[in-house]
């Protein structure tokens, strides 16, 4: 019994330590972000931010777009198979448009980026830790949070909402394809129905979620990298852990945000 209690206590303390570390890292990064900004910040840091934006956003574009098209198509097909029975096939448009704008656009993008870039952040920082590159930054009077993390976080904050918008558009486009082939609905009519079914608050809540997901992915990935201890095998473990934890936290955050928006914004 004592062992179980000890184990529960230890795990609780570890989790609290993790959340605390994330919190401290987030505030330190916010303080250091100014130097990663264009014009007012350090120009080399801004170049690093642009490089990161290309890696997180531009390089992920084909994958995210394809995922969104497939998911949009699946959602339309599954929705249509049920709605057809009630003669309400046109509700597929609402289902796809609202579903993607509020929910699937941000979530799909976050899961794709978490797998691509969250793991890359953990691997990069973990390798830097193992090869003493982080120590060499510190002895050069450069803080790793300012030098490595701030450009990544800023890039994620810009790229992930942009990717979210693009994935939402592709998801809605897939719904349009389905409607065209199943009911011969003209693209222009489909566009009008879509515009009628989504409201500005749907777009805003979707973007708020994507900013929160960007924060989770960047910080969990980097924290896992910073926490690497030992040799190269621990880099592999931290990479896996970054993907698992960030995906889990993204889904938890999504549930929390959806509940908040449901009860406050009255979606």
């Amino acid at each position: 019994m004592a062992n179980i209690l000890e184990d529960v206590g230890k795990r609780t303390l570890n989790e609290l330590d993790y959340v605390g570390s994330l919190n401290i890292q987030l505030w330190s990064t916010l303080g250091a972000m100014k130097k990663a900004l264009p014009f007012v910040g350090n120009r080399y840091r801004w170049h690093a931010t642009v490089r990161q934006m290309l890696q997180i956003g531009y390089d992920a574009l084909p994958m995210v777009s394809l995922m969104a098209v497939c998911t949009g198509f699946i959602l339309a097909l599954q929705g249509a198979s049920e709605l057809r029975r009630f003669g309400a096939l046109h509700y597929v448009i609402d289902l796809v448009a609202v579903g993607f704008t509020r929910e699937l656009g941000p979530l799909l993008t976050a899961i794709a980026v978490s797998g691509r870039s969250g793991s890359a952040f953990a691997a990069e920082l973990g390798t830097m830790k193992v090869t003493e590159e982080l120590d060499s930054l510190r002895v050069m009077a450069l803080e790793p949070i300012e030098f490595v993390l701030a450009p990544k976080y800023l890039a994620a904050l810009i790229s992930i909402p942009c990717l979210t918008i693009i994935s939402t558009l592709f998801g809605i486009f897939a719904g349009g394809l389905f409607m065209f082939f199943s009911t011969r609905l003209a693209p222009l009519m489909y566009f009008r129905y879509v515009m009628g079914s989504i409201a500005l608050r749907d777009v805003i809540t979707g973007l708020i979620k994507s900013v929160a997901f960007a924060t989770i992915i960047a910080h969990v990935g980097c924290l896992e990298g910073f926490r690497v201890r030992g040799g190269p095998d621990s880099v592999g473990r931290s990479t896996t852990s970054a993907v698992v934890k960030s995906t889990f936290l993204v889904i938890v955050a999504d549930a929390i945000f959806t509940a908040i928006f449901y009860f406050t914004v009255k979606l």
Partner: protein
Amino acid sequence: MPIISIRDLVVEYDGRRILDSLNLEIERGETMVLLGGSGSGKSTLLRQIIGLERPRSGNVIIKGVDITRCPPGELKKVRRSIGVAFQSAALFNSLSVADNVALPLREHTRLAPSIIDLMVWMKLAVVGLADFAKLLPQELSGGMKKRGAVARALALDPEILVLDEPSAGLDPIVAAELDELILLLNHAFGMTVIVVTHEMPSAFRIADRIAMLHKGTFISVGTKDEIRASQDPRVRNFLDRVPEDIASAAAVATHFEKYLHSQEAHQ
């Protein structure tokens, strides 16, 4: 007044004492070699000197500033006067050799890019890497990487140069070249040089004084001749390459007894 004073320094990891009440003073312009076997605490002492870790007790005073107690801003200032070349070289793999050397100049000075390029070329020329400036670290040999790390450590013209195992893993000729480079830096630029090594030929070639570590304590500190003449059995064993008695029957029996005691304590 010494440029570095180490006073009653105690370092512990998980309750295990690694450095025990160390005292050492390093004068401006001298080459101090920290000599000792594997696990003697050399690298731990070096990490204390460059402020990467905090001790359990004691002080490390560099240019009048106690870096174990000072605020982060002051620590950064002190670090700018120290150049460090790590054992693994720790060059940034994503940057060319020239960019590695330029990094501290770009971050800590407001020099024009053309001046930075000139300074980088000069530093690389000093270590004999001027023709390899555009190469990435993974395209260099072990000795070239170490020289690249020295060039980066020299970038801000530090008053103190710290080198961790500069000749480890290098062939005798490259190791000798590095020794000559250290001597040149010390004589030509008047730098205070601290070298951590367990290579005796190298230590006796470059040192003004040698501090010999054994199991976390200094067993002898003195000039090369004083160390050579030492009659301390631990110093003699190291200099005369006498192996420790780890595989004798008595030693194995002692270890086994310790193991049994620890198992009993667990139960």
